[in-house]
């Protein structure tokens, strides 16, 4: 049983691609072991931006020998054919056997297949395995038509036990030599064994374990101050460093007069720093950076980063001061020169549509906010920090003496940015956010810019998802049909998003969602209540049987064709039919909310079961048959206001 180690050494791979590449490397190697009966299992994958590493254990030294049965001509075949088969198999005709198969008797030959050495097989298979790793964007580096990878491969360690698995990939020969940190440790190659690999690299300032790097960063950052939690940044820093260490720097407190959103954006996204909070929760004039060297004893790195941050903050201050020379209110007209979309028109036109829609949805204050919502697109600050659009508008309105409610609505009008994000916190903000998104959707659909497959350049799915989320979580009454304004394709698009929302965000089963939406989705607040009730009552013993019965009834009605008009005639009922009718009357009481109603519907089960036990719907007497169909139809229509139970998948 042999251990195995693979290290693919490359130039800096983008941090966000590494975890997925490692996962695939592990899976693909495990499949390789199984497909070729090499035994063993992958025990770990890990790495840094410069190395993807895999460990496995328990590999066999060579595959077991096996016997392959080769079939030849049938027993009655021409002797020449038999001799030919023997010759091809490398034996004399006497060595052939005759075996009985399902098709008759055939000459066969049992070939002894010697197992191959694992090292030899791996040497053949590893180049392809490495090159098959998926990366979103790959490159040539040895020239056109050469190998492609995410970045150039510069060294490969491949060890089976204490021996190298020899192969060549992109001109790089595999070996037992790894590479140190770019600036620190030994300059040349680092010879390693499977046992000492991590220790040797650590001596050369490479911490191979991403968990250890992450923990080191977390520990050191925590020791340096009250850093804002930033899981995404932590991941990035874990994978762009090989030997991380945190340092703390400061900036002049006078910059704190700039919007904290801007300062935080510069620190987190442009500089990859953790922003630091003061004891009172406000922003502190500090930052925590993570270097890719162990220490900064002379303070070079701190000073350098402080200098860069100062320059960036100066830029931001310059933009802020320039922007204040013209209030947002005066900038709305400039939106005539900012294109929203070539086929649709300018942001000024969008603004006037948004104002009308916001007025309808949220009244005068919403209209005022909608008028100003896009004006920040003309500011220097938003040109520099595009992700802060809306936020900058809100901050400027407040700074320029606008109404706080209007400022807040503009600030939040891009929300929710994702399924996890919250919706705008005020009714006015919700109305402006809806107006913005609905206008974008209507305008794009009107010029046939409809997302297909993975193509959605205007993020229309996100916009529609935002509309759904605001309506449900804001408990707002406008229906999606109204918002779609008669555009059938947009209505359908909304319906898809509604399904997606209740399944993926709210976690309802797909059949529950289908059942509830099948009977109407005009009022999403009501849809939410009905779903909650279906989910709550579903585990009770009578629910699924009743759902199954409803499906059966629906099938019967469909097969029966056009329904005879009118209500069922009670005088024609037998005992079982009368029982169903009576139970239905009782269950039809509408008080007590949806869960209570559903429980009553589930309570129909004994009566319905009894009905189907006793009665054949397709009675030879057409009058009796029609009356039964009428009864069943009445039952279905009466109890399908909460959900179409026939959509429920029953066991």
């Amino acid at each position: 049983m042999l251990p195995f180690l693979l290290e693919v050494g490359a130039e800096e791979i983008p941090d966000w691609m590494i975890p997925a590449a490692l996962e695939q490397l592990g899976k693909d190697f495990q499949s390789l072991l199984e497909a070729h009966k090499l035994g063993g299992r992958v025990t770990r994958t890990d790495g840094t931006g410069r190395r993807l590493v895999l460990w496995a254990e328990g590999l066999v030294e060579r595959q077991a020998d096996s016997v392959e049965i080769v079939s030849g001509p049938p027993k009655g075949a021409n002797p020449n054919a038999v001799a030919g088969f023997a010759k091809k198999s490398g034996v004399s005709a006497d060595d052939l056997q005759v075996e009985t198969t399902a098709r008759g008797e055939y000459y066969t030959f049992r070939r002894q297949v010697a197992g191959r050495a694992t090292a030899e097989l791996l040497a053949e298979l590893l180049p392809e395995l490495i090159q098959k790793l998926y990366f979103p964007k790959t490159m040539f580096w040895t020239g056109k038509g050469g190998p492609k990878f995410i970045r150039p491969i510069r060294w490969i360690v491949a060890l089976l036990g204490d021996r190298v698995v020899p192969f060549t990939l992109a001109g790089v020969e595999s070996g037992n030599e790894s590479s140190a940190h770019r600036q620190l440790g030994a300059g040349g190659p680092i010879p390693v064994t499977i046992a000492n690999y991590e220790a040797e690299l650590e001596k050369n300032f490479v911490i191979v374990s991403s968990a250890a790097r992450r923990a080191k960063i977390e520990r050191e950052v925590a020791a340096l101050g009250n850093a804002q939690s930033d899981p995404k940044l932590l991941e990035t820093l874990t994978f762009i460093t090989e030997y991380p260490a945190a340092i703390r720097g400061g900036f002049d407190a006078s910059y704190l007069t700039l919007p904290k959103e801007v300062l935080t954006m510069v620190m987190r996204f442009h500089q990859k720093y953790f922003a630091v909070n003061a004891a009172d929760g406000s922003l502190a004039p500090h930052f925590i950076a993570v270097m890719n060297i162990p220490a900064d004893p002379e303070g070079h790195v701190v000073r350098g980063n402080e200098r860069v941050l100062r320059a960036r903050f100066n830029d931001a201050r310059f933009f802020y001061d320039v922007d204040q020379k013209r209030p947002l209110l005066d900038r709305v007209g400039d939106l005539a020169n900012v294109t929203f979309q070539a086929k649709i028109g300018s942001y000024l036109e969008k603004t006037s549509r948004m104002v009308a829609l916001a007025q309808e949805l949220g009244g005068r204050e919403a209209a005022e906010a909608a008028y100003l919502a896009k004006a920040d697109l003309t500011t220097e600050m938003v040109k520099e920090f595009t992700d802060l659009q809306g936020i900058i508008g809100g901050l400027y309105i407040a700074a320029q003496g606008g109404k706080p409610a209007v400022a807040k609505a503009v600030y939040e009008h891009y929300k929710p940015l994702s399924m996890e994000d919250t919706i705008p916190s005020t009714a006015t903000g919700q109305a402006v956010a809806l107006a913005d998104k609905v206008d974008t959707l209507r305008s794009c659909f009107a010029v046939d810019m409809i997302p297909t497959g993975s193509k959605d350049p205007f993020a229309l799915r996100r916009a529609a998802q935002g509309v759904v989320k605001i309506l449900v979580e804001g408990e707002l009454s406008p229906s999606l049909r109204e918002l779609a304004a008669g555009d059938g394709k947009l209505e359908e698009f909304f319906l898809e998003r509604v399904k997606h929302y209740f399944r993926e965000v709210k976690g309802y089963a797909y059949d529950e969602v289908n059942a509830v939406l099948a009977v109407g989705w005009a009022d999403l607040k009501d849809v939410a209540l009905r779903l909650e009730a279906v989910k709550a009552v579903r585990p009770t013993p009578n629910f699924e049987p009743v759902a199954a019965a409803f499906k059966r009834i629906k099938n019967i009605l469909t097969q029966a064709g056009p329904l005879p008009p009118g209500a069922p005639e009670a005088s024609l009922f037998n005992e079982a039919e009368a029982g169903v009718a009576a139970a239905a009357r009782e269950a039809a009481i509408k008080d007590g909310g949806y869960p209570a109603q559903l429980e009553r519907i589930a309570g129909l089960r004994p009566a319905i079961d009894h009905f189907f036990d006793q009665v054949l719907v397709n009675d030879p007497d057409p009058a009796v048959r029609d009356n039964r169909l009428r009864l069943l139809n009445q039952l279905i229509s009466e109890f399908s206001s909460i959900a179409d139970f026939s959509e429920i998948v029953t066991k």
Partner: protein
Amino acid sequence: MDSFQETVFKLKKYWADRGCVIQEPYDIEVGAGTMSPETFLRVLGPKPWRVGYVQPSRRPADGRYGDNPNRLYKHQQLQVILKPTPKDVIDQYLGSLEAIGIDLSKHDLKLEEDNWESPTLGAWGIGWQVMLDGMEITQFTYFQQCGGIDLDLCPAEITYGLERIVSFLQGKESVYDIEWAPGVPYSDVRYFDELQLSVYNFESADVAMLWEALGRHEAEAQRLIDQYKTVEDPAEKRRFPLLGAYDQVLKCSNLFNLLDARGAISVTERVGVIARVRKIAVGVAQAWVDQEPFRTMKEVA
């Protein structure tokens, strides 16, 4: 402490020692060192090439009237092209930083994903921005395509932002405080460029004239590209002035940037004008590749 020019000398010497031809800047306005024919045309085709040069790069929209300590209308790039890319290219690059006095064991160096793309040149590559103590000092790109053509040899393009590197080395808060030559600050050398050309670019350039010039240079480039396609005689092909056509492309690119800074191009028009410039850039690149075998031909007796 080295002056700005001393640092430039050292970098040029470093790359000269590694087989680079040291060129002077191209003498037509460009927005980046990539646009010099030393890069744009030489990366095409199968011939190896190593070159280094400082290219003053004009970005009209980045002008700040000489007021902003870190933004310039015209900045100096040191551009290095290594075609094909040596295996130890990054180590060689790191060596150049050591050569200008950066002790890398004491500084934080990161290569952060940054793929470069120039829509007007039909060019793109894969690479990084090199961050030194949190400051971007170099753009490192493995060229993949240029003028819409896949590159045979995938050259490495190393673009040093000289003002940034030197302000880092000299510990200056403002580029204008950099010492260009001993006792001579950057501001003495360049301030009025920044001030007067910001005024010109933002306030006084004649928009109608710029549009007209753009149209005429574009037409001249297109005329030459079209004419090249009709040439069949090898000797005529060899002497056909594609380099002249490329100069017209550069003129167009700079005029586009000026019009953009002047606020004369709406967002809608932008895409269209970029496409016009790309069309002639791609046209020249394709013709240049076609001309390759004729250029290697010996002089006709």
